[in-house]
């Protein structure tokens, strides 16, 4: 007789143990899939006991990058570190983004509110945001004004989806949506662009 023909009644008489075995196989398969597909668990890069939340008044802070070099400086009247997401909430922050180029001055900025994520890689600035870089050499001072900025200080990069205005000497540019890389001075304005460039200075004949 075919062995499978005897299997059915055999299983039917032992429904409970058969169901248990099936369930165990299913759970095993799912767990195996989860180990295989799920991302590696995030390694906590902070050593030591979890830090408590704290509030600082009239603070000055320096955030260092992985090479131990200052990636940006930040100051302001009020700072709160909240345990929940371990990020920083700032009121009226002023900040300096190092130009990381010899002879090129830092960008100074200020906004109404600021938020820095746990690792210090991401800053969000709100309220009127104004950034200023002093003049140096033949290059005129530069100013950027917008209403909101997302910045990656360790990459010296920033962007906004809001209207932005840039003034550098007699040149002015404005648009809606901006991306700027302060390292290689690469600038993109995404929509509705207007600009004015000064006439050429005639070199004396």
């Amino acid at each position, binding site marked *: 007789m075919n062995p499978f023909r005897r299997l059915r009644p055999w299983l039917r008489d032992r429904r409970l143990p058969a169901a248990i075995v099936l369930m165990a196989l299913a759970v095993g398969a799912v767990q195996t899939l989860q180990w295989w597909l799920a991302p590696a668990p995030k390694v906590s890069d902070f050593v030591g006991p979890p830090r408590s939340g704290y509030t600082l008044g009239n603070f000055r802070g320096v955030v260092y990058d992985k090479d131990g070099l200052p990636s940006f400086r930040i100051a302001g009247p009020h700072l709160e570190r909240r345990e929940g997401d371990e990020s920083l909430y700032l009121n009226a922050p002023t900040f300096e983004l190092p130009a990381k180029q010899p002879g090129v001055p830092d960008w100074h900025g200020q906004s109404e509110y600021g938020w820095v994520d746990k690792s210090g890689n991401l800053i969000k600035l709100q309220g009127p945001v104004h950034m200023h870089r002093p003049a140096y050499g033949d290059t005129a001072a530069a100013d950027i004004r917008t209403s909101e900025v997302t910045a990656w200080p360790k990459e010296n990069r920033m962007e906004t989806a809001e209207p932005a205005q840039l003034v550098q000497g007699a040149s002015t540019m404005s648009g809606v949506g901006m991306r700027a890389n302060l390292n290689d001075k690469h600038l*993109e304005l995404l929509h509705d662009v*207007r600009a004015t460039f000064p006439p050429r*200075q005639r070199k004396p004949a």
Partner: protein
Amino acid sequence: KQDDRDKPMNVEHADSFDGFQKPNSVSTLKGHVVITQGTLRLTGDVVKVYFDADEQISRTVVTGSPAHIQQLDDNNNLMQGDAATLDYDNIKGVAVLTGNAVVKQQGRGEAHGDKLTYNTQTSEMTGESGGDGRVHMTFLPKPRAAAQPAKAASAPAEQGK
């Protein structure tokens, strides 16, 4: 006009800008680009703006379907030009139109060719043809003094009464 070059260059509109704020760089404006400089007006789909060592605009290359240029000369005569590519030298004030180039000068005539060079300082124009194409130029006749012939025509009319 001759003093157009001493005026600021304005980007009246562009859909997007992608460039560098540093010497010897090229910036690209895309989408419905309108640029003015005094009475000079350039329009096109893509404009590449070349900045020299002093971060001043040295050249502007406009491409479009067509790229368009227009300007008033010192006698307020309108010059209009269309071409596939328009290369405007902001230092010498010379525009080179290539690809189905057409230039019309009010009161003077028009020219068609593969490559037309228009000097915005002197309103001088030169045409070159590539391959077997020819340069076509039409010069409008100088308007004759209109007063005398009109008098002669009216005298016979009176005798006839």
